[in-house]
């Protein structure tokens, strides 16, 4: 191959690779990205049945109930405007408490959010950015009460 042609082939190969990466990524992202919703979004019917989503909000006070098998818990997540009932089977992460922030991965089935994963909140200071505003409001409320 002549050097000039060789470069042409290489440049076009790089272009094709870049294009392939973009197309593959777009194809994959179209139906494999999980949207983040709050209970108000779910009440508004934004999440389709069985679609993998993330739910975020505060664990409603007095809502955590442990089921008979000792592993399944039910609780409600609220954003102040609406609440969504959640069911989860597994070991809840550290610092999962009533009145604190939570992000759950799963899907809506018959009005209940069935969680596959409850995202860990590792310490008092860390808050998923999605919950940033909610947490700030919550904190402000708390300060006023005090």
């Amino acid at each position, binding site marked *: 191959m002549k*050097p000039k042609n060789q470069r042409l082939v290489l440049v076009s190969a790089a272009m094709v690779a870049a294009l392939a990466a973009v197309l*593959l990524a777009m194809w994959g992202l179209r139906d494999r990205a999980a*949207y983040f919703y709050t209970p108000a979004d779910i009440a508004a019917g934004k999440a389709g049945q069985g679609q993998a989503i993330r739910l975020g909000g505060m664990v409603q006070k007095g809502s955590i109930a442990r089921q008979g098998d*000792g592993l399944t818990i039910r609780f409600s997540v609220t954003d102040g405007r609406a609440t969504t009932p959640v069911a989860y089977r597994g*070991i809840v992460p550290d610092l999962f408490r009533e009145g604190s922030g939570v992000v759950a991965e799963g899907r809506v089935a018959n009005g209940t959010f069935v969680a596959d994963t409850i995202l860990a909140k*590792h*310490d008092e200071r860390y808050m998923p950015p999605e919950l940033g505003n909610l947490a700030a409001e919550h904190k402000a409320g708390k300060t006023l009460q005090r």
Partner: protein
Amino acid sequence: MIAETGLAALWLAAGLAALQFVLMVSALRNGIDFGRPMRAIAIVQGVLTLIAFAMLLWVFARTDLSVALVFENSHSAKPMIYKIAGTWGNHEGSMLLWVTVLAVAGAVFAIVSRRTSERTLLAALGAQAALALGFYAFLLVASNPFARLNPPAFEGRGLNPLLQDPGLAFHPPTLYLGYVGLSVAFSLAFGALLTGEVDSRLARAMRPWALGAWILLTLGITAGSYWAYYELGWGGWWFWDPVENASLMPWLAATALLHSINVLAARGALKAWTMMLAVIAFSMSMVGTFLVRSGVLTSVHAFAIDPERGTFLLALLGIYVGAAFTLFAVRGASLKEGAPFELVSRETGLVINNLLLSVILGIVFLGTLYPLFVEAVSGEKLSVGAPYFNSVAGPLALLLAVLVGVGPLLAWRRERRPVFKLLTVPVLLGATALLVTFILAPGISILPRLGLTVAAYLAAASILPLIGRNPLRTPLATWGMVLAHCGIAVALAGVAANAAFTSERLAVAKPGETLGVGPWLVQFEGVTPMAGKNWTAIQGELQATRGSGAVTLKPQTRYFSDPPTETNEAAIETFWNGQLYTVVGKPDGTGGWQLRLWWKPFVTLIWLGGALVALGGALALVGRWWRLRRRRREPSWRERYA
């Protein structure tokens, strides 16, 4: 005074970096030889940053609570090792480590590099100074680690307990050395594009840096994966968390760079291509730093949430990447392509390797940044996780693993021998593995099944380059390549076996109850309270039996008070054919405890494979260095009798 000394050292280093950059510009413009002063400045800069970092270590070791950073992130009751490791367990400290590594890399480069022409070397030193200058500014303006607290606090706030682990002492510094080692490859590419001297000498000068950085990245990623595996207590080894992707992206780019450097060094071909990869590799390091340090992404690792810093880092990223790409656009076209090659040749194999790695890199990059993009455009929030990355990048990674077996067999320039015949045995092995998985485990999904197939094939194919050669005369670099490729097969086998054969058991057990998981019977003996230096814990005791052997596992749930946090300390028992992984959860209120048990066959191969890949890289590095030394010491007979 300690903190002020550190701060002064940083300011001085920043001033020297500016001077070094100005000297570079003037040296290239007016042709003055500033080699000596620039080398000296680079070395002094390295020493100054080391002093600054030592000062920060010192205030952390003393728990000097008049320093804001120590107050925010340390506590007097912490064990000494975590006081020291805590120095880089926070935003400011880790950025100081970043800058220190950057400056020290520049100093070492100034001392050892003699392979390029003096002009290119000066240009590269100038580029390195410009990089350092930006990050000094970031530290001094937006992330001062030495800021004082007035009045001093009585007690610190403590370090995130997840980070109170030996893994932390080792993992971030290793990754940073890797990230920042790539800065020298970037500076060399920048310098060579400026002077137009892109040749095999440049490739040989760049290779040890790219290889060294790549080894450390490999080690850092492997160690980080194991840390997440045992510390988070979720039983997974890779979560496609943006922070993990931040370390994977530079690794992918560095892997591609490493292979294309070899083409440039051996054949003088792929010039523009290699320069592009060198720019991309360090750009990915900066993207990674931006993602981790700006807190823009939802992430379990997102420790820093501060928009001002994010904007600063983004601006730095834009300036450096923009400058490099502009220079590339201006100069890239004028680079003469080197020796030609034919379609079936080692060069083509390496080009395909580069293309596949770049596509995978693009997929990871787009998937990681897509949530940011969507949120900026529509305000909607979303996350991209394993379903996307595994199904889109996974098949490409498998294809790449297949080709890894072929590439090293091809000759440079053109291959006319029937080399594909050599692959008969590996292909047969792969087919056998496929058949065996269909018979023994008909129910597993397609990717793990193909993974096991390709792993069996590659394990055999990777050692083919050694066949028919005298093992003692085979260069160490070839051994390194074989080992690294074999390590990929080993890691792939671990990944696939773990995905295909893991058994999991989640249950509530009362003391005395027995649960089965995989081939194991696990008896729950009960829990006991425990206390450590800065934590209390509930410790479960489990007796696991398989056939005649019995082991005791003691998983814990730890409670830390500063800051108030719980962590799961999984108890993991390693056997030759897998790991038994146990976690104790919460009480159910009626005397039972939640237990989560996993039997993970051959999961350890994942990290063993990673270690082999790094070891292969190290062999290649040592081999090339040793060869070079011998060549320098013993003049050839031609020189001797000339």
